[in-house]
């Protein structure tokens, strides 16, 4: 295709990877970033007037469940990637616990093919560590690597057998595939549905102690240190895990970690009304844990923010808390919650906050994108930092509505999302910001 030119002009250009945060323009040619800065005067470009908007790299979410193949009543690649686009996410990593699971190159091929055919953002599959996510035998890791998985994970559970995990670490190193671990010792979390503490005692709900996460984090760090493999700790929820990861990083263990928007904002007190939209694994913990997670982000112990977008159909969540499935969705509230919490409430610098959503996650898994550097893929999000909006699950593109943030008023929103130089989603009022080729040129 002859390179079309899209000139996004007069925005506040924020590119954490290059430390850029200043007024300026971004020029896209075809599917690549062609220029960034001031004084760009392209000929024959379509103009997108970004006055008053932040122009940033598209967000990268390395923890998403698209439920495809197998559970299309919850989500599929078409709906899940549209939810991503509405949330400003241009790249996502989808977990392997589908039906059938991504423990076979054929399934990975199918996901990639379907993403090309029906998806609107970049979809990077993770492959299973073990066959059937059963934790016993290694999945065909070389084949999965050849099929294009970007990481290995039995997410939904840990690889419970330490010997199996150790061999998986040794083996996956040959293919440079990090292992993403959902840290949960099933013998400690057994039967639990929320954080074990004063609130669980009061509500008569079985608790999941912090130790259920921490013993597995500790084990994984020891194994990663010994095998020199890269382990990535998913959805860190507890104070003790932050301490363990901090200490491991200090002695050079190849560990990275993520935290979800809900663990940065909510505590177990939210469960008071028995609403299953606050039920997820790991569970919401206490204010003390939230503080530790924030501190972990700030000092670099935690590397990025990821949603653990876990759709469940409305009927599945319309049951007593005890019986409801674990998981909440997050793609469409990711940016709003993070900006409201970290930028508006805590006053943290925008560039730093956006780095946890763009270049940092991209670098953890070696994904293209996450930056506006010249030559990078033209994945861009336009953000209205000041826009206040009410979270209305009925307006979500996701097939599922299980968000803990329903009814919240958030400040900051993606208003247009560009993947490979093409606009895949925008708010209605952004239509007024377009000028046809030639009209806007100086």
């Amino acid at each position: 295709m002859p390179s079309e030119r899209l000139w996004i002009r007069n925005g506040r250009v924020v590119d954490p990877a290059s430390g850029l945060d200043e007024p300026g323009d971004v020029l896209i040619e075809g599917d690549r970033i062609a220029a960034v800065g001031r004084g760009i005067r392209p000929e024959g470009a379509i103009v997108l007037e970004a006055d008053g908007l932040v122009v940033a790299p598209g967000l990268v979410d390395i923890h998403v469940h698209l439920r495809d193949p197998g559970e299309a009543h919850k989500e599929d690649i078409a709906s899940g990637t549209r939810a991503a686009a509405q949330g400003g996410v241009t790249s996502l990593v989808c977990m392997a616990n589908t039906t059938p699971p991504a423990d076979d190159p054929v399934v990975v091929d199918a996901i990639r093919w379907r993403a090309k055919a029906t998806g609107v953002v970049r979809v990077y599959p993770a492959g299973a560590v073990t066959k059937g996510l059963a934790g016993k035998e290694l999945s065909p890791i070389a084949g999965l690597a050849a099929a294009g998985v970007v990481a290995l994970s039995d997410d939904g559970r840990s690889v419970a057998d330490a010997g199996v995990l150790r061999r998986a670490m040794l083996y996956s190193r040959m293919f440079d595939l990090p292992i993403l671990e959902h840290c949960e010792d099933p013998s400690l979390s057994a039967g639990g549905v929320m954080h074990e503490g004063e609130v669980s005692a009061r509500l008569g709900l079985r608790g999941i102690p912090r130790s259920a996460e921490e013993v597995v984090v500790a084990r994984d760090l020891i194994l990663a240190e010994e095998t020199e493999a890269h382990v990535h700790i998913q959805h860190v929820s507890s104070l003790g895990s932050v301490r363990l990861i901090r200490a491991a990083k200090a002695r050079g263990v190849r560990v990275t970690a993520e935290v979800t928007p809900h663990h940065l904002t909510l505590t177990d007190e939210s469960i008071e009304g028995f609403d299953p939209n606050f039920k997820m694994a790991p569970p919401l913990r206490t204010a003390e844990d939230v503080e530790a997670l924030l501190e972990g982000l700030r000092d670099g112990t935690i590397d990025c923010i990821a949603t653990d977008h876990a759709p469940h159909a409305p009927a599945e969540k319309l049951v007593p808390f005890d019986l409801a499935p674990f998981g909440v969705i997050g793609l469409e509230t990711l940016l709003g919650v993070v900006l409201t919490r970290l930028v508006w409430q805590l006053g943290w610098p925008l560039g730093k906050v956006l780095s946890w959503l763009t270049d940092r996650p991209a670098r953890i898994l070696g994904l293209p994108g996450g930056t506006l550097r010249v030559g990078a893929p033209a994945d861009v999000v336009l953000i209205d930092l000041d826009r206040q909006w009410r979270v209305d699950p009925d307006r979500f593109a996701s097939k599922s509505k299980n968000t803990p943030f329903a009814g919240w008023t958030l400040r900051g929103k993606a208003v247009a999302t560009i993947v490979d130089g093409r606009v895949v989603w925008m708010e209605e009022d952004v239509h007024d910001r377009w000028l046809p080729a030639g009209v806007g040129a100086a």
Partner: protein
Amino acid sequence: MKILPKDLLGIRTLTPGQLHALLALSQAALRGELPPDGLRGRTVATVFYEPSTRTRTSFELATRRLGACVLSFDVPTSSVQKGESLLDTARTLEALGVDAIVLRHSASGAPHTIARHVRSSVVNAGDGMHEHPTQALTDLLTILEVKGRIGGLRVVILGDILHSRVARSVSYGLSLLGAQVVLCGPATLLPRVPSESPGVTMTTRLEEALEGADVVMPLRMQVERAAGSFVPSLGEFARLYGLTPQRLRGAKPDAIVMHPGPMNLGVEITPEVAYGGQSVVLRQVEYGVAVRMAVLYDLLAYPPVHPETRPTVRREAAGVL
């Protein structure tokens, strides 16, 4: 004056005023002062997803004594895990014109889930490990009737505190009314964190707990919990925490013994104590009916219950005439 809003889901969310008023109304029921046909024309459904004899029977008896109609809704035990059918069941009962749904369910919070979605009143008859408010009211009424007061008494709740909805509800109620509550059991059967309710303490030492006690309430030890996972054996539990006549002598001489039933004789309580002079176990059963009459009366005696549905039918009928 009406005491409760639409439902009775738990004790913790009640005010001391509501609790006093419910106990006063229960005392009135006990003395036969509630109108025998006070709930004529109302329908109460008992929906039990877990087996129960005394709770269900006493709800049904209470309903009949107030002149209301009982719908005993049988739930096959096989469908207990199918949580999704619960809301359908509740909506069906609502559509049938049921005024109150009395629900027993193994999932904590189950009555809260349906209360949000139906207009019928919901009475929690025990939800998982959460609350069992009418049992707690029964225990409070028993203490009040036997001891003449609740505030200032030392009440020991003994055994499997962790899994007990009775322990939770009773201790909230006692705490609200100013009693001193001691929760006592092995460390694996106590909550991991101290209760935030005022006046509630925890200990693993039985002798210490019993000292100066006015009321001792051993809880039913679930046999399945003792299969080596929470305590090594029922026998060891009985040796450490079973309420024997000798141990009871460590309490005040006029201490009373209560049990929410059904009892495991020889485990948490010996037969000598269960049927001894200090036991008020059978009075608890008797008072249970009065409490349930009071609760149902308060929830249902004040019209209109279904402002949206009932009068519509009548209005149409009037139009035809």
